[in-house]
Structure formats: C-alpha cells, structure tokens
C-alpha cells in the first residue's frame, strides 16, 4: 500500500481489540500506529480479564487447601500476605502489558502515547502531534456504568477497578451490587478470602444471558459456598458511618426498604461504551445515543475507511469478541476476505466451578422457533470430577430435534472454560450431537461429560439412566 498518509492504519486504543488489529495489520505488511492514552493492554490486561483471574486463582487455592482435609491433607495456621497477593497480580499484568509493548516493537507498530482525537476523517491529534492515516480502527472500549446514589470512591465504594486492589484486612462484610459475570467473579474472590458477601441483582435472575437451568445450578452452588444472593433487589443509596457503609436496599416487587451495613460495596452494574475525547463527529463517524459506534460484519463504521471493534462497537462486551473483530478489521483493510461471521460468542464466569456457555440457551432456541431437544449430564456421575473434588454442576446440550444440529452448550463445572473449546468448534463446524457422541474422548476426563451430554440428547448416555 503506498499512500501519502503517515500510516496505512492508525488504531485508536490498545486494548485487546486494538492490539490484535494493530499486530495483524502489521503482520500483513501494513504501516501501523496505535494510539493509547492510558496503558497498553486496555481494560482487559490492566483492570479486567487478567487481574480478576489472578485473584480468582488465589481465592480458589485457599478453598482448595480447606477441601484437602477430605483426603487427609491438613495445614497449620494459614496466612495471606495481602501486599504480596496484590504484587503478584500486578506482576502478571506488568508481564503481559510489557509483552504487548514488545510485540508492538517487534512487529514495527508505532506506539503513539496520548489521547487520539479526530481532526478530520483522515487525521487525528495525539497529544501535540497530528497524524494522518488511510484507515482508522476505533477500539476505545468501555468503562464501568455508574449508579446514582452510590458514588465510587475506590476505597469504601468501589467499581471493578477499585475491587481489584484487595484491602488489608479483607473486608468483613461485602455488598456486590449487580449479579452479572463481573459481580460474581469478585464475590467469589472475596468470599474465598473470608468476606461475608451478599450479591443483589435488579433482574429476576443472575448472570443474564446464560441458560436458565445453568444459572439455577450456578446460584445453588454459589449459595452453598456461602454467598448470599438477593434477586429483584436494588440499592438506592449508601452512606458512610462509623460502623460501616449503610446501604438502603429495596425489594423491587414490594417496594420494601431495608438498610444493611457493609465494609465494602462493589458497584458492578454493567459497562458503557467510551468515546469521550475521541471527537468522532469531526470524522463524520456516527455515535448512537447509548454511545456505541456501530459496525457492519466487516467492522466498518458509517465512514468506510474508519473501522470500529470491541466494546465500543457492540455488546457483548468481551475481550475475545474484541480480538476477533480486531483481526477482521485488519484483514479487511489488507484486502483479505475476512468477516465477523461467528456462529456464537462464548461467555464464562471464572468462579469455581465455572459457568461457561456458547451458542443458544434452551429458551433462546425455542424463541427462535427451533424444536429443541436437550441432554444433561451431571458431574456427580463423572469419575474425573470425583478425583478433582469437584462434582457440582453439569453439561447441558441444546440441539435441533429433527436435524441433531448443535445449537448451544452450557456447562457448570470445573475447567468449564477449557471444555468450551470443543463446544465452540462444534458450533462453528455445524456439528451434530452425534459428531460429538461418536468422537472418542479420553478417559477419565471432564470432556467425557460433554460426550455424555451429547449421548443424553439421544437417550443413550452410559453413566446415567436416560428418561
């Protein structure tokens, strides 16, 4: 590509969407720059996917040490050095963000430090300098939604970013406002670290978007682990007093109000797209009322040479969707036949057990007019799950009745996110339940439960009675 522009592609934002786009564009021989105003890696690496998983792992190790007593392994007094925990987590973040920086260098992606604002549809200003580019990829991501009445101070009342810094001591009483993925991941961490955690959710169900049976099983397990869950409940206001944070809770059905006292309140009520400072209108780029910049399946905005990927483009706000879209945008710009044509985008709650799914829920499939068959295999019948001390949960498969076509897979269980690999590939390959059932799965593995769920669709699972 020869142009009179400074760059073939200028990417705005170095989160997963942006850095995937930048690196792939560079791999394809384009001259690339990537502007970032905060830290390379975006929300995902710095204050999202990665640090949460580090804390979740630490919390799970605490729980595992407790469960080790079941097989005769006991320990003397346990000590958690909170400063070291936070440092370990930060070290992983640093390693990964440093890695992205190194990949930029190695791939010759120019890293522009500062906020990018459009001047016109081929020009941005980053700090004092202006740059021109033939194409832009907007990857400016998202930020936590706010909740009136609960002002985040990142100490007593925190959002997901504040919650990532584990305080010392661990708060005795924790309220999580919002029963979505992020809320439950933090609740699980704090619960394992010793907090008494309560989750409130406005809607009738937690983890909106997940299969109803899976959510039911998941909630049951979370409650068994000690997390209190109150649905159809909202938090009206919070007040710091000497004995803690007084939060007014309201039952949304009856309107009944109560006040409860906590030591830390996490506001995790969703995320909203972020376009502040971008000056999109200078480029003629359309921003919706809700702040999104919509894209077509080639990731093009309304301005054909300005692409948009990741959280700022659309829901679901997930890193792997951003990555895929980043690759598509880069390839389309390079003249490749790429398209965001994913059959399904997986979702995971990285608690222990995990809740992971890909494809349609049973209800979604019915709503779309499919005649549906399902197969469920409980992990209580899995030998591998027993040896892992993790028999809570199941694999549920949703299948089109007459064609056996796989529509969705919903897993509550250990390593559920690892099992999604097979489920996701199966959906993309238009596999049938038989394709999975006829594939040898190693014994003894958790993957056998995926096989058995497929067999259960045909009423032929071996390790349960098929009704």
């Amino acid at each position: 590509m020869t142009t009179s522009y400074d760059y073939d592609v200028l990417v705005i934002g170095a989160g997963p969407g942006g850095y995937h786009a930048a690196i792939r564009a560079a791999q394809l021989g384009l001259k690339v720059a990537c502007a970032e105003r905060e830290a390379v890696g975006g929300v995902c690496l710095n204050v999202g996917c990665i640090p949460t998983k580090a804390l979740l792992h630490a919390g799970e190790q605490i729980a595992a040490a407790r469960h080790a007593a079941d097989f005769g392994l006991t320990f003397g007094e346990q000590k958690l050095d909170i400063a070291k925990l936070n440092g370990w987590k930060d070290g992983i973040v640093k390693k990964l963000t440093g890695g992205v920086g190194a990949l930029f260098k190695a791939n010759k992606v120019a890293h522009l430090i500062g906020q990018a604002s459009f001047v016109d549809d081929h020009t941005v200003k980053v700090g004092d300098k202006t740059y021109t580019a033939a194409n832009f990829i907007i990857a400016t991501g998202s930020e936590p939604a706010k909740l009136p009445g609960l002002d985040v101070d990142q100490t007593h009342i925190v959002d997901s970013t504040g919650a990532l810094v584990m305080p010392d001591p661990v708060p005795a009483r924790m309220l999580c406002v919002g029963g979505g993925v992020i809320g439950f991941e933090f609740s699980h961490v704090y619960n394992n670290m010793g907090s008494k955690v309560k989750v409130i959710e406005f809607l009738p169900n937690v983890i909106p978007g997940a299969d109803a049976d899976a959510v039911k099983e998941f909630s049951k397990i979370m409650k068994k682990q000690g997390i209190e869950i109150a649905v159809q409940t909202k938090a009206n206001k919070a007040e710091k007093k000497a004995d803690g944070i007084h939060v007014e809770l309201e039952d949304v059905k009856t309107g009944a109000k109560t006040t409860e006292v906590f030591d830390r309140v996490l506001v995790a009520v969703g995320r909203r797209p972020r376009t502040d400072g971008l000056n999109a209108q200078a480029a003629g780029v359309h921003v919706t009322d809700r702040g999104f910049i919509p894209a077509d399946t080639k990731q093009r905005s309304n301005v054909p040479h300005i692409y948009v990927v990741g959280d700022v483009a659309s829901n679901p706000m997930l890193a792997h969707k951003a990555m895929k879209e980043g690759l598509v945008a880069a390839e389309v710009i390079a003249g490749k036949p790429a398209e965001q044509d994913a059959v399904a985008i997986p979702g995971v709650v990285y608690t222990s057990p995990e809740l992971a799914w890909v494809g349609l829920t049973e209800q979604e499939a019915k709503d779309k007019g499919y005649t549906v068959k399902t197969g469920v295999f409980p992990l209580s019948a899995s030998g591998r799950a027993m040896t892992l001390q993790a028999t809570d949960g199941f694999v549920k498969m949703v299948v089109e009745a007459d064609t056996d076509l796989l529509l969705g897979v919903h897993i509550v269980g250990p390593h559920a996110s690892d099992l999604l690999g097979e489920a996701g590939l199966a959906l993309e390959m238009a596999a049938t339940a038989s394709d999975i059932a006829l594939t040898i799965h190693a014994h003894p593995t958790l993957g056998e439960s995926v096989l058995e769920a497929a067999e259960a669709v045909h009423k032929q699972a071996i390790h349960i009675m098929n009704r």
Partner: protein
Amino acid sequence: KPVNARADGRVLAVPAARQLARERGIDLAHVHGSGPNGRIRVQDVEAHGPAAPAPTTPAE
C-alpha cells in the same frame, strides 16, 4: 436458486469453507454441502467450480 435453505436461514458451513467462499466470491447458498444437514466443507466449495471474481476490498 439456493440449494441450501434451512428454516432458520442459516447456511451450514465450516469456518474454512466460509473463508474460501468469501475469497472466491461464491455465495454459499448455492453450494451443495456434502456433510450431514448439507454442511459445506472446503472440498464442497472447491467442487463448486469456477468462481465469480471475488468482490475484493481494494486497500487504499
């Protein structure tokens, strides 16, 4: 005339076949899929015969 018409509007094809069809400018709805439920594999796209010129996106 589409040889692939499912009630849900989907054309069942593996990812690599979708990619190849895009590259060759072939509409998958006209490709005969040899797999279960008419699932289209790479070989089916190749067997579809000479393709129309791909609607490429010229890089500027």
